[in-house]
């Protein structure tokens, strides 16, 4: 085992919540050397940028970030029940997705409270589409973004319980993404690795839908 690689990573996972960003940033920078082996050298710099772009610290911040995305998805599918003009198989899919996202919202809000935090308020959203095709196009963006958002946040999560639970959600988001992509006649799994996105990148992606 290469101690130079291993040690900073172990230090990273033992960093206390109160220690703050400095040591964590330092640790991520060092640890990013190892990321090159997995993603290829070209990925190191984006990885670092992504990892450091997380604006809120701690698991509550990450959970509230995820909660905001789930609010968006839940509202989107709830509206879609009456707006998307979905029929047959797609209608069932919309109902399933609405139900799953609503469960994610409730679970995340409850978990934030358990950690002693205050759940993020639900933003107001505006989804502009006029037909089924427009709905599906947005759904694909939201689901793919959701997957990348959770994947980007995962390594920042401190609690193993929260990480395991977030993993259970992201896999469901990935399944949604694949199902929506099939509806769009797109590759359901376009790449061997789902790219992680930073909070900033995710917020930029969803900003047009916030009122």
């Amino acid at each position, binding site marked *: 085992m290469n101690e130079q690689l291993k040690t900073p990573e172990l230090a990273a996972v033992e960093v206390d919540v109160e220690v703050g960003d400095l040591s964590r940033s330092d640790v991520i920078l060092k640890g990013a050397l190892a990321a090159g082996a997995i993603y290829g050298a070209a990925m190191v710099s984006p990885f670092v940028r992504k990892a450091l772009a997380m604006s809120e610290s701690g698991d509550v911040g990450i959970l509230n970030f995820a909660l905001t995305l789930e609010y968006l998805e839940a509202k989107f599918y709830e509206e879609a029940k009456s707006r998307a003009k979905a029929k047959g198989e797609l209608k069932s899919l919309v109902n399933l997705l609405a139900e799953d*996202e609503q469960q994610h919202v409730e679970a995340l809000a409850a978990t934030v409270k358990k950690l002693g935090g205050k759940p993020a308020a639900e933003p107001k959203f505006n989804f502009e589409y006029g037909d089924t095709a427009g709905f599906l196009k947005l759904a694909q963006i939201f689901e793919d973004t959701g997957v990348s958002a959770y994947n980007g946040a995962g390594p920042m999560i401190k609690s*193993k319980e929260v990480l395991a639970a977030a993993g*259970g959600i992201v896999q469901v988001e990935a399944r949604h993404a694949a199902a929506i992509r099939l509806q769009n006649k797109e590759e359901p799994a376009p790449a061997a690795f789902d790219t992680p996105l930073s909070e900033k990148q995710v917020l930029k992606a969803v900003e047009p839908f916030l009122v």
Partner: protein
Amino acid sequence: MPEMKQLRDPVSRRKFLAVGGSSTAVAAFLAACGDDSGTTTTTTDSMGSGDGETAQFGKGDVGILNYALTLEYLETAFYADVVKSGLFKGADLETIRKFGAEEAEHVEALRAAVKQLGGKPAPEPKAEFPLKSAKSVLELAGTVENLGAAAYLGQAANIQSPEVLASALAIHSVEGRHAAVLNTLLGESITPDGAFAKPADVKTVLKSVEPFLVG
């Protein structure tokens, strides 16, 4: 969550467990931790002692990566055999080719990651798969992909290195996508576990793939 004996962050854990009671949503969320499922992980390897349930594959993250590598070898071999079988044509064949190519990429990435950590990549297991009909093959593919996704999920919280975790997550969600496609082809639910996917432990996973191992 009795299986989680040690934690990276004791402060968070105390806060997490401090408040009693639960709503349905919380119960479901926590179920994703595996505390009430039949596939609960039993590892106590959270502090890198190397004695986790993947210990037979190596210490710490190397063991987890080699465990994943072994599964990816099997998936890659399976899809290659399915392509050769001639049971599929057209769009379905293309899907199978694509998934097989992605599993092969996972193999390469995992091998490189093991080496980067100073470990030795696990050997490719010899395997044979029953390829009787298109339907039975799709069913097997569905089983394999859902199991693969659950296997990654079962290990995510055991991974020490943030970089290894980032890579495992990037693969995990792709396995989830594959699983959803196969479930769709089979006319089954894309989310068989509901809104929160359940993990599978090493023992369960290895037992499931054992029938396909040769020698």
